[in-house]
């Protein structure tokens, strides 16, 4: 097997991976960086983020406000030391993006403009119209091209970490162009592979978001933290699940039911006026808004369409000029995909799986429990997002923790020499290659990849969606266990080497099943309702028992083993989440 030696390996070339690569290159230009991704960097799903990135920008705002909004929004499951440093580093990272050329939208005096997002006391979301993730990703990618030490390995699918004596020493990856397995040997490894929304059938997430990095770390022995917390975004287009940014509500959009009534006022988010108003009504947090839709649906007040029930997001009162300036993508997407030009028609929307709050367990330095292994971005769980991520914190998180991962990886790679004996590394590489070979050899009455994927999707939606119960979760856990078993019998129809997407989809399915199982078992064990995790049988938050992170530990054949760790509380004691009312 070809061995590629490098100082730092980064898996995933979206926002977090690129930011980490640049940080390594700037920290120590002598270090070689191999940046691997299963897609070209600009295809990474950071590209689809629309509304913006949070960072204190105005004199009427403060770190304390950003901290409080984040911790409250996360229903007190955030680690407060992590949030503290996150809010302080946020404006610095966003400023750095500005220096690198990010085309942030501007105010008339030439300074960077900010807009309000849900659950936010003062507007602090930096934006580039409604294509913020797109612009950030392209800015980072283009910026990375000036560093000779960064070598990008496009279309390499990473399969297994190599860990020797508790130290991460590299990984194996399939070069998709040839179908050959390569071994990357490194001093430090950063995982930045994004989330796992694709375990659900209806999601804003692109096809690539299959939790590969989460599964890779999990199988290597790093726990997956808080996996039961999966965010529904309240406004996705029916049918496709395409995201309509919260920025649309930040600019003044309203949500109405079939009677044209702003129903959020019935769910402790009102009164409706004056509007727009921060931390109220349509600018409440995502979990509350998605849950309100569920109740509204139960009351029969949603609109029945061929793609399921919807409510309307109405932007007409904003007028064409404002929509075109601030929300051009929303206009384009709604017009072409659901035939609703928001200048003239309300947009049909419904809650859609959007973001995995949980992920690879890391500390505030992006380090995992395996020495030399770091993780950042949506695949990681620090946790700054707690039980419900505040809108526009995720783009900033990519930068803050991507950069910290880069610094940590660079520091470790700069100081160390590692044992010369690579026998064990090579052996593990061969084991990984054996896993791939086995997939090719399996034949007979095998399981189909799309078939298993659909069963997984259906099960997760039915059993682990917006509202969950003991029964629904029990059943989901059992189905996931049996799907994982059946996956061992999966059969490839494509036996060729070059760009074999049947093979890649098999690996992706394996990752998704591991991750979905961790989500379901974590959810079953958390017998309370908090943030995005809502149980119909345990409707209250239970701080006595569950003010804790859940840690799912991998078991190759059985259920994940769940452990708990205390949340870091520094200055904000758990309280009641108040939105609407007199909030200013």
């Amino acid at each position, binding site marked *: 097997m070809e061995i590629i030696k490098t100082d730092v390996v980064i898996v995933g070339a979206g926002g977090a991976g690129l930011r980490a690569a640049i940080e390594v290159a700037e920290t120590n230009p002598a270090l070689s960086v191999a940046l691997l991704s299963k*897609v070209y960097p600009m*295809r990474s799903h950071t*590209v*689809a983020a629309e509304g913006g990135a949070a960072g204190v920008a105005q004199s009427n705002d403060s770190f304390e406000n950003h901290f409080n909004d984040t911790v409250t929004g996360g229903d007190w499951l955030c680690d407060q030391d992590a949030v503290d440093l996150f809010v302080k580093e946020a404006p610095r990272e966003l400023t750095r993006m500005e220096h690198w050329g990010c085309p942030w939208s501007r105010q*008339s005096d*030439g300074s960077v403009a900010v807009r309000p997002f849900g659950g936010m006391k003062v507007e602090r979301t930096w934006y580039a119209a409604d*294509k913020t993730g797109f612009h950030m990703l392209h800015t980072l990618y283009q910026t990375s091209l000036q560093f000779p030490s960064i070598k990008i390995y496009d279309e390499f699918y990473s399969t297994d970490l190599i860990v020797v004596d508790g130290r991460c020493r590299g990984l194996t990856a399939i070069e998709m162009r040839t179908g050959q397995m390569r071994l990357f040997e490194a001093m430090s490894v950063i995982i930045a592979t994004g989330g796992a929304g694709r375990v659900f059938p209806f999601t804003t997430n692109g096809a690539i978001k299959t939790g590969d990095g989460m599964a890779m770390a999990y199988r290597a022995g790093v726990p997956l933290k808080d996996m039961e917390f999966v965010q529904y975004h309240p406004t996705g287009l029916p049918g496709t699940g*395409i995201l309509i940014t919260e920025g649309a509500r930040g600019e003044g959009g309203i949500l109405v039911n079939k009677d044209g009534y702003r129903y959020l006022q019935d769910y402790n988010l009102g009164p409706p006026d004056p509007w727009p108003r921060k931390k109220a009504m349509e600018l409440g947090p995502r979990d509350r808004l998605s849950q309100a839709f569920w109740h509204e649906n139960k009351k029969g007040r949603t609109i029945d369409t061929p793609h*399921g029930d919807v409510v309307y997001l109405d932007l007409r009162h904003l007028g064409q000029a404002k929509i075109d300036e601030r929300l051009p993508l929303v206009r384009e997407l709604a017009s072409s995909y659901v035939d609703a030009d928001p200048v003239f028609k309300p947009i049909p929307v419904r809650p859609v799986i959007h973001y995995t709050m949980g992920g690879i367990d890391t500390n505030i330095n992006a380090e995992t429990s395996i020495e030399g292994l770091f993780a950042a971005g949506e695949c990681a769980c620090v946790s700054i997002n707690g039980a419900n991520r505040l809108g526009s914190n995720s783009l900033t998180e990519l930068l803050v923790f991507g950069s910290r991962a880069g610094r940590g990886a660079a520091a470790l790679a700069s100081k160390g020499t590692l044992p010369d004996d690579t026998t064990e590394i090579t052996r593990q590489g061969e084991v990984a290659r054996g896993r791939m070979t086995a997939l090719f050899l399996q034949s007979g009455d095998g399981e189909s990849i799309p078939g298993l994927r659909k069963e997984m999707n259906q099960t997760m939606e039915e059993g682990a969606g917006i509202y969950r119960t003991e029964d629904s979760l029990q059943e989901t856990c059992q189905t996931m266990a049996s799907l994982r078993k059946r996956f061992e019998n999966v059969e490839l129809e494509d036996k060729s080497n*070059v760009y074999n997407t049947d093979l890649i989809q098999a690996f992706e399915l394996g990752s998704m099943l591991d991750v979905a199982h961790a989500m379901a078992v974590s959810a079953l064990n958390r017998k309370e309702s908090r943030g995005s995790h809502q149980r119909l049988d345990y409707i209250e938050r239970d701080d006595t028992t569950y003010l804790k992170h859940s840690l799912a530990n991998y078991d190759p054949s059985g259920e994940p083993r769940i452990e708990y760790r205390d949340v870091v509380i520094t200055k904000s004691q758990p309280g009641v989440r108040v939105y609407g009312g007199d909030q200013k």
Partner: protein
Amino acid sequence: MTAASEIKPDEIKTRIIEIEILRYNPETDDEPAFQTYQVPCREDWVVLDAVNYIKDELDRTLSYRWSCHMAVCGSCGMMVNGEPTLSCHSFLRDHPDKLRIEPLANFPIERDLVVVMDDFIDKLKSVKPYIVPREKRSVDDGTHKQMPAELARFKQYTLCINCTLCYAACPQYMLNESFVGPAALALAHRYNLDTRDVGASAREDVVASNPGVWECSFVGACSDVCPHDVDPASAIQQAKIAGVLDYFKSFLMPKGEAKK
């Protein structure tokens, strides 16, 4: 709540579309050949949905790229009935009962609808698509001021998603693959116009060279197929004008670098 994935098929029209796809596996095929599929398509689908149906239900061996399904990641460009097309943004309601799908023209085929992107990536890099700063600026210095009008001068050229439809449409690139091409030249122009940047002269070697803007014959096919109205043709024309001005300035001012 009704399941989001639950479709009421009787409420959405379906029809059978005959889809021909150019297949090529370098390990087994001497040359590419068409394969035909009969696909039951829903009227609200895009072309990509039909291709995904083939992959999931009819033929696991088909290879192609896709991800976001919202016209922003730029992966899923294909020739659809001869036109460079972003397949996630091309609606079946606008197509007849027969579709012919091929890999993007003017690129070597890697496998089926997957083309070799190396040349494009090299060209992107060649134009130095990053800010060359006037002076070193630290984070503590804060952000630059940039007036909305200054942003507006280059904003359009930041919208390129690197889908490479413009290369598939470009008659010059077809004839001469050393042509830097529409997307890369538009990107160079984007940075040249940015008030934060002074890299125009560093980009000149590539941009103002023969395979650079002067190779373009201004057919405008690139702008016609661009899914985001970047209008690379106008970027190239503006760059030509800027190049001519620089040429004359060089007589008036030795080392006549002027910020455009």
